[in-house]
């Protein structure tokens, strides 16, 4: 019988290929469930999940909430802006207080890298990392790979380019780990100031010419420029960024093949991608969102199986 090799989902780097396969197989079943007239199963009736969001989120938070509700778990929500964190409470104290209310699983988004790992060493609950700083965002990477698998049949051997602000992106790092684990070739493309210095040491190709990168790939995963994490200027102007790294329909049509367009959201239309590209037939952006719920249901379900009664 199959189960995950890990006790928490802290990052893709802790997973094995078998774990990813198991998550995808389970997500296949949940995808069928969420397309039924009644989209809910009673599996997690006796599980309570706390969604702790110390950083803003719309998509991920809604997706997690929906996944938890579809599994019939009880949920509590917490966002740092309305909490005692503002009054000086530490992370462990906040979480321990929440845990005394008998919570089984914690979904954590935090601005500090490694917050999930830190918490998992001190807290007796399953932790799911919903994004820690610029480090990892494992559920996003899993749903991205799952969407590629759904569109192209498999991830193995596919060429995927991640375009944009790689330096500040947790989505990029998790995606690189997940894609490499499944045997895909990964390239990053963006302004050289926004590409981490040692990224080629983990087997990732670097390309600063957008056209060449698109010509090479089967799938382009386009990231947003994370202005909120930038404390200095990495490129002269947004206009110049758009001219060099923005993807428009003309550029897409000039390629000799039909590549798949992905974006983890939120989209800045007209900056990294134009509307006609985001809404084109080649784009699977909205499938990514739908698959996000199925993937998160699978992860929560598989981790909940490991909770001791």
């Amino acid at each position: 019988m199959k189960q995950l090799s890990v006790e928490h989902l802290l990052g893709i780097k802790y997973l094995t290929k078998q774990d990813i396969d198991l998550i995808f197989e389970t997500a296949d079943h949940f995808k069928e469930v969420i397309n039924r007239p009644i989209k809910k199963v009673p599996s997690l009736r006796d599980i309570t999940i706390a969604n702790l969001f110390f950083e803003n989120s719309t998509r991920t938070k809604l997706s997690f909430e929906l996944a938890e509700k579809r599994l019939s778990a009880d949920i509590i929500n917490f966002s740092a802006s309305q909490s005692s964190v503002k009054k000086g409470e530490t992370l462990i104290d906040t979480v321990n207080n929440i845990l005394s209310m008998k919570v089984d699983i914690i979904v954590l988004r935090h601005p500090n890298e490694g917050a999930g790992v830190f918490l998992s060493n001190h807290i007796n609950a399953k932790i799911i990392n919903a994004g820690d700083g610029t480090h990892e965002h494992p559920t996003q990477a899993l749903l991205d790979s799952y969407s590629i698998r759904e569109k192209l049949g498999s991830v193995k051997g596919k060429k995927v380019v991640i375009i944009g602000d790689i330096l500040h992106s947790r989505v990029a790092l998790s995606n690189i780990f997940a894609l490499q684990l499944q045997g895909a070739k990964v390239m990053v493309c963006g302004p050289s100031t926004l590409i981490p210095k040692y990224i080629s040491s983990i087997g990732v190709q670097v390309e600063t010419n957008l056209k060449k990168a698109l010509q090479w790939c089967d799938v382009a995963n386009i990231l947003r420029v994370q202005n909120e994490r930038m404390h200095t200027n990495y490129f002269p102007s947004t206009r110049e960024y758009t001219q060099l790294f923005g993807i428009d329909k003309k550029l897409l049509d000039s390629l000799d093949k039909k590549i798949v367009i992905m974006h983890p959201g939120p989209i800045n239309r007209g900056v990294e991608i134009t509307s006609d590209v985001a809404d084109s037939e080649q784009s699977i952006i909205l499938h990514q969102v739908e698959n996000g719920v199925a993937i998160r249901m699978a992860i929560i379900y598989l981790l909940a199986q490991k909770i001791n009664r």
Partner: protein
Amino acid sequence: MSKKLLLNAKEIDIIIHRLACQLLENHLDFNNTVLVGLQPRGVFLANRLVALLKKDYAIKDITYGSLDITFYRDDFRRREEPLEASSTNLNVTIENKKVVFIDDVLFSGRSIRAALTAIQSFGRPQSIELLVLIDRRFSRDLPIQPNYKGRQVDVINDEKVLVHWKENNTKDAVYIQTNSSK
């Protein structure tokens, strides 16, 4: 561990023919009926019945599908081994239809309880019946009984009923396995 043959391939074939006739008696042309094989092992029996009804009894249209009950089980996190899900393939409407659940062995009745919950996600059937190949009498945990049964057996709880299908084993057969270490 010892294994005793309960039914051989020929006996199973005769039983499936009888079950098909019994279904036919109650459902005639099957136009308002949906046959649902319960994953994983009830699906083999369901496929056999459908093939037989089409071939020997000239029923043209039979609506059927498979239902996985893993997410509806009442022993989630209560077992040593993790539960593994199978796929559900029920692309038919069951609203106001006569549903027949098909499974290989009826033991505690808990799987059927889960199936009764699971089927509600697809609509409100007019009625639900249960067809099983083997009915293990005296081992029920819940008040659930089959409408159609292939063979009733009295086995004690240490014993296990094994149904082999030629689709995934070498031949059709039903065995009773006894744990002789006890």
